[in-house]
């Protein structure tokens, strides 16, 4: 628990970065966690093969909100190829939470990643294997 709610997580939860929506946007994807009903919407604006702007909105637990906040910071300016390849392990390393044996909270942490990848793959007209995100 001390790890789960260290200051960085609580800080991002209280004051999330990139919170809101983008208008216009190239990608807007909403994902929800059927276990708790939480929803996250993630918007992307794309230019020159990079993510030019990103925003997220929705309600959720500290873990899902902090993960979305940190992920969106990371995504700004990222090549689409790199965003496409961004993985579950990347998110876990980014947020620094040991959730390997915590399958329920893992879904919270990965909700924003799932929204980003589902939306981006659709934008690119590619097929996403969501197994690693479920």
């Amino acid at each position: 628990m001390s790890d789960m709610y260290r200051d960085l997580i609580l800080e991002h939860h209280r004051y999330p970065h990139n919170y809101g929506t983008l208008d216009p946007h190239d990608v807007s994807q909403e994902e929800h966690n059927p276990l708790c009903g939480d929803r996250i919407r993630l918007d992307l604006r794309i230019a020159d093969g990079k993510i030019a702007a990103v925003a997220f909105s929705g309600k959720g637990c500290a873990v899902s909100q902090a993960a979305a906040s940190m992920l969106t910071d990371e995504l700004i300016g990222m090549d689409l190829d790199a965003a496409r390849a961004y993985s579950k392990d990347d998110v876990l390393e980014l947020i620094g939470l040991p959730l390997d044996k915590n399958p329920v909270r893992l879904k919270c942490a990965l909700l924003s990643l799932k929204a980003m990848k589902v939306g981006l793959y659709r934008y690119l007209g590619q097929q996403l294997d969501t197994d690693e995100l479920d």
Partner: protein
Amino acid sequence: MHTPPFDIAAVRRDFPILQLPIERPVAFLDSASSSQKPEAVIAAQAAFYRTTNANVHRGVYQLSEQATYEFERARGRVAFFINANSAREVIFTRNTTEAINLVAQSWGGSNLHPGDVILLSQMEHHSNIVPWQLLAQRTGASLRAIPIDSAGRLVLDDIDTLLQGVKLVAITHQSNVLGTINPVQYLATKAHAVGALILVDGAQSVPHMPTDVQALGIDFLAFSGHKMLAPTGVGVLWGRKALLDAMPPFLGGGSMIKTVTIEVSTYADVPARFEAGTPMIGEAIALGHAIDYLEAIGMANVAAYEESLGHYLLDQLAEVSGVTVYGPPIGPDRAAMASFTVDCAHPHDVAQVLDSEGVAVRAGHHCTQPLHAALDIPSTARASCYLYNTTQDIDRLVAGLRKVTTLFA
């Protein structure tokens, strides 16, 4: 006031998991999800596999005879526990969900027609909604829900209107979120007055209060073993004999037949007709022992103690600022559980912080999305009590909640 009418220390010693040092002993407040098991139940299941293991209703050898005897003894214990007319009215299922699906497919499939209505309530568990939706899609029947008021009670002012065209009322006896205990007896009278049947979801009520299916005047009762000290994998459908006798099979296979040719089969009498394949023998026997355990304490004593625990739980939660509790105030129609939200923290975070304090509660929508939609909240945390809980468990919950409000304020 919170002194139980039985030896609580002895009861707690009966549950091995309550003795485990999970950093400190767990304050287990999630029995509404699944209860803990006493040593007597664990030992009974193990003893079956060690000394009696064989298939039932098949062999003429001694082990199979004894397994059959014990399996059927368990059926008799269940019948006695809910005051059924006969053990033949007791069908073993995997759980409450399967019991409800059995009625939906078997009774519903042969009795519902386009235009018929199934009356549920806004506070049902998904297991008492989805099977009826599937049935409605198949038969052309439709669903209607009794609304709830702001206290979390059924709104029954317009029950006569709600019952128009209804063929079946499917209602929970006790809400798994609000803790509301519904007036099932009244609804049974009302349903029968319009020629409808009533199925009661007893998953939350049967473990916690005396159950008398004849006094309730209901037609079907579904409940799970694992919420009443028994293992997972065994549940019960009780139904009136005349109704069960007229119902077609649910699953096909061994045990549920009289004769089989390649073209056609004739079916066994109830309850065998609804128990296709090898059943959950060890689990059913263990359920019989769980009932022995509960009967030895007395369900009236369990209910009386839980009422005092519920009182304490709601009183204590009311003292924590920022905590909102859902469901009726403490009283005869309120069970010893509380679903709540904390102003500053999401239910997942609440449950996680409580876990770090050794307090086990559930967080989520508790398989009641329509209810949470009506309450206009995505999810709640839920603390639920059983006979082995104490006021100390609740004190630890409250201390944990104060940590939550400090951390997230």
